[in-house]
């Protein structure tokens, strides 16, 4: 243990030296680590959730380069679900099935992957309300809405005139807007220009997206900003309600080797945006019409089918045309996170290269604006004087401050990437109260409700970037680690260490009681509006329209109906519309076809999913249930016969094993009811 600690200290010192932060001792991390490394004595009982018992919190972790969201229980750290959002997910058929393909449509065509960064719960009065979870895609900027009754992605909006949608999808206290800001400035509108012309041609945008109505996300307006990198954001609350704060770095406007060239200035900025002023300026006709195409993908709640719409044009605001829209708050140094305390007064910056944690005062900011305490003006944006807005600085907090969350008791917790620790400090006095090492190099931290007006200040989850020796090794590629820390007392206590999926950037959590009672158990078949739904066993069948063949099929324990299909020819495109007609909690089926160049389908109870299949050669192809559904699951299978093009094999589908052997007009008893065999099935 001591050896690894020495090694780590060495690594940190090396990191510090590499970063050129001179005159800073390694002492804080070393000292803190040696005193708080021990796991709390009662940790096991604190995180033990007995079999059959439930966790206290649902937590939603972004998946980073997985493009998805994972749902974990806290304090147990048990993984409940991976919700596919921006990446295809063959496990369920998301992005493969005909119903879900459209979710991944963009102006670039079908984008099968993205880098999902920040989860954000919908808010009412500045407090998570459990309606929706939003998450952003960084690579091809998009914002998704996840419905928290079904834990499924129901809407995705592409962000036009942007690149690198990183400062996203943070919400206003009433969820009127969620935002997205360009991490990578680019020519706006896009153009073929020399990259060296960055300072002349590259711009950033801040995008406000209307979010309060499901299925109706849209770009409300964009603000054209100087060509910096806009990194993170958070809305004001309470007194600062109506303002939005974004961090920037690369105010140097470097276009190459940013590592060095964007780390020159002592201070970059926090952009304070008065979005009510933006609304006013738009109403006053001060905005301009601007181009830009973007795609909006929505799942129709009635049919369960996603569709895409391409939209063109946005409302663009220029700070120079709208007095009082944006102010820059100088902030050391290359700030990353910007976090607003529960009272709405303090604006905490994670100056990742700063030796202090700078905290601005909203009250002072308003006064500085009123007193015109401006240093200079950049593209119509007044830069306020640092001394006029700063409330205090947390001295010697550690190295590499990134993100801050709050416990609602006047304390703040900041993640320290370089010194690999979480530091607890006091709002107002700015004194460091406690520190605890985390393993290793923590990025975001999350306290349930810790960025809202009412934090549940019991646990803190540290989301780490480097795992190394924490778990049994699994080759060069391992998982990212997370640590659960008890923050209910004066001293932070380490409770649990668990691996995560992808790379969680941010996370959100709510008490289980907020979502557990409303979680949907199954879709009501009677409300299934899919155009190819099959409501009953006898309604299944096969139809041909030229080269297109539609198979309507039901799945129920333990069979498909129909389960014999003939008359399909090479050159046909076959759509299997499979409806799981079970109306029972958690009774899912699956569907897969031998040799299909596609994923399988999972079929939650009451839902219809469609698999597209283009058979390549004459043969008999089995299909089967891929989700062990019942005692006779292994019997849940069927066959499709594919004949050569032009074959005279008649198109046929049986609707049950009984129908197959019965003559036309025969009476069949099925499930106690009598049916008559007809040419199309049982009547």
């Amino acid at each position: 243990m001591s050896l690894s600690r020495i090694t780590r200290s060495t690594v940190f010192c090396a990191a510090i030296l590499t970063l050129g932060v001179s005159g800073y001792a390694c002492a804080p991390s070393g000292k803190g680590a040696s005193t708080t490394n021990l796991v709390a004595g009662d940790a096991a009982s604190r995180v033990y959730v007995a079999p059959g018992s439930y966790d206290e919190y649902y937590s939603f972790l972004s998946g980073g380069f997985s493009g998805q969201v994972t749902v974990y229980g806290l304090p147990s750290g048990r993984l409940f679900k991976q919700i596919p959002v921006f990446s295809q997910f063959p496990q369920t058929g998301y992005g493969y099935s005909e119903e879900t393909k459209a979710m991944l449509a963009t102006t670039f065509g079908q984008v099968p992957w993205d880098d999902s960064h920040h989860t954000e719960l919908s808010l009412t009065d500045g407090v998570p309300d459990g309606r929706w979870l939003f998450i952003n895609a960084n690579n091809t900027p998009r914002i998704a809405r996840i419905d928290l009754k079904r834990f499924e992605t129901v809407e995705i909006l592409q962000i036009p005139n942007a690149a690198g949608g990183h400062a996203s999808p943070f919400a206003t206290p009433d969820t009127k807007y969620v935002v997205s800001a360009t991490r990578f400035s680019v020519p706006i509108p896009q153009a073929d220009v020399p990259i060296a012309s960055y300072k002349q041609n590259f711009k950033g945008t801040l995008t406000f997206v209307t979010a309060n109505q499901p299925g109706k996300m849209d770009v409300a307006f964009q603000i054209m900003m100087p060509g910096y990198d806009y990194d993170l954001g958070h809305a004001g609350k309470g007194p600062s309600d109506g303002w939005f704060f974004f961090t920037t770095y690369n105010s140097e406007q470097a276009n190459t080797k940013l590592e060095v060239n964007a780390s020159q200035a002592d201070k970059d900025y926090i952009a304070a945006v008065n979005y009510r002023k933006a609304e006013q300026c738009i109403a006053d006709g001060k905005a301009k019409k601007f181009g830009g195409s973007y795609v909006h993908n929505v799942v129709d709640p009635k049919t369960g089918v996603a569709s895409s719409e391409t939209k063109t044009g946005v409302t663009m605001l220029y700070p120079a045309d709208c007095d009082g829209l944006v102010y820059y708050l100088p902030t050391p140094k290359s700030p990353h996170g910007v976090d607003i305390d529960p009272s709405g007064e303090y604006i905490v910056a994670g100056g990742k290269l700063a030796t202090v944690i700078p905290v601005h005062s909203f009250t002072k900011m308003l006064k500085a604006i009123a007193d015109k305490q401006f240093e200079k003006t950049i593209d119509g944006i007044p830069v306020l004087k640092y001394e006029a807005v700063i409330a205090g600085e947390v001295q010697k907090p550690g190295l590499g401050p990134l993100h801050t969350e709050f416990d609602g008791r006047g304390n703040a917790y900041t993640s320290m990437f370089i010194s690999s620790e979480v530091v607890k400090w006091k709002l107002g006095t700015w004194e460091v109260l406690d520190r605890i090492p985390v393993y290793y190099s923590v990025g975001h931290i999350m306290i349930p409700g810790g960025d809202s007006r009412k934090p549940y200040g019991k646990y803190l989850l540290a989301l780490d970037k480097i795992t190394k020796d924490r778990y049994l090794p699994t080759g060069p590629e391992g998982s990212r680690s997370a640590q659960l820390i008890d923050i209910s007392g004066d001293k932070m206590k380490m409770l649990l260490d668990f691996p995560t999926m992808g790379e969680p950037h941010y996370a959100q959590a709510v008490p289980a009681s907020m979502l557990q009672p409303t979680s949907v158990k199954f879709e009501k078949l009677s409300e299934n509006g899919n155009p190819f739904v099959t409501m009953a066993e006898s309604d299944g069948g096969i139809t041909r329209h030229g080269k297109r063949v539609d198979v309507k099929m039901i799945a129920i324990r333990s069979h498909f109906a129909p389960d014999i299909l003939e008359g399909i020819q090479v050159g046909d495109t076959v759509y299997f519309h499979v409806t799981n007609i079970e109306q029972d909690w958690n009774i899912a089926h699956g569907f897969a076809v031998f040799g299909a160049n596609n994923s399988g389908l999972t079929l939650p109870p009451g839902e219809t999913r469609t698999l597209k299949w283009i058979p390549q050669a004459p043969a008999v192809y089995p299909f089967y249930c891929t989700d062990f559904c019942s005692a006779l699951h292994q019997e849940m299978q069927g066959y499709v016969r594919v004949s050569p093009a032009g074959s005279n094999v008649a198109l046929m589908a049986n609707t049950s094993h009984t129908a197959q052997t019965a003559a036309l007009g025969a009476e069949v008893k099925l499930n106690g009811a009598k049916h008559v065999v007809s040419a199309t099935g049982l009547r």
Partner: protein
Amino acid sequence: MATQLLAACPMHRTHRVTMSVAPRLLTAIASLSLIGLFFLPLWRVQLVAPQYPEGLGMRIGISSVRGATPNDLDNINGLNHYIGMQRISADAIPELRIMPWIVVLLIAGGLAAAVVGRRRVLYAWCLGFFTFGAAGLADFWRWEYDYGHNLDFEHAIIKIPGMNYQPPLIGVKQLLNFTAVSWPDIGGWIAFVALALALAAVVIVMRSHGQGRCPLHGAHHA
């Protein structure tokens, strides 16, 4: 028992033609409480299995067989296809179309007995009520027997020689992986209480009528 009651309190002992207020009130309350049978189930059958911790339930009323939740009955029928049980459906049970009318008659008869206040009307009504209840339970048992024994062995997936799937009338029984618990529901309890009130009215009438010498009072308690 009701016939004994009547036999033990023969008419020639009658001294007073109309009943006192108490038995008439009891009779009226008993009759009116039967209105609840139109809204509340008589009997409940609950099925619990390892993979059904939340249970599946049936609620049997005077005119209906329903699931405890909207899909329970379909899910029970779905599972029953493995053992070849007939589909449980209210449409297949003609008694459920007759029972509401019998209850209407019982309510009307009871109210008539209370209004008219004649002993013989009360006795006749009480006898009718008791007979209806006993016949109803017997009929319920007969249907349970039919569903549990009359299986489609030709198409049944699970066939266990000697096994039947008749749920208990009252009590607990293991049916493969399911534990079946059968018990009166609120409507059933209302009917029992109404019957008890009716019998109490009869006892009061007999005691006052026979000056406490009616042997039936003792028989009732035996």
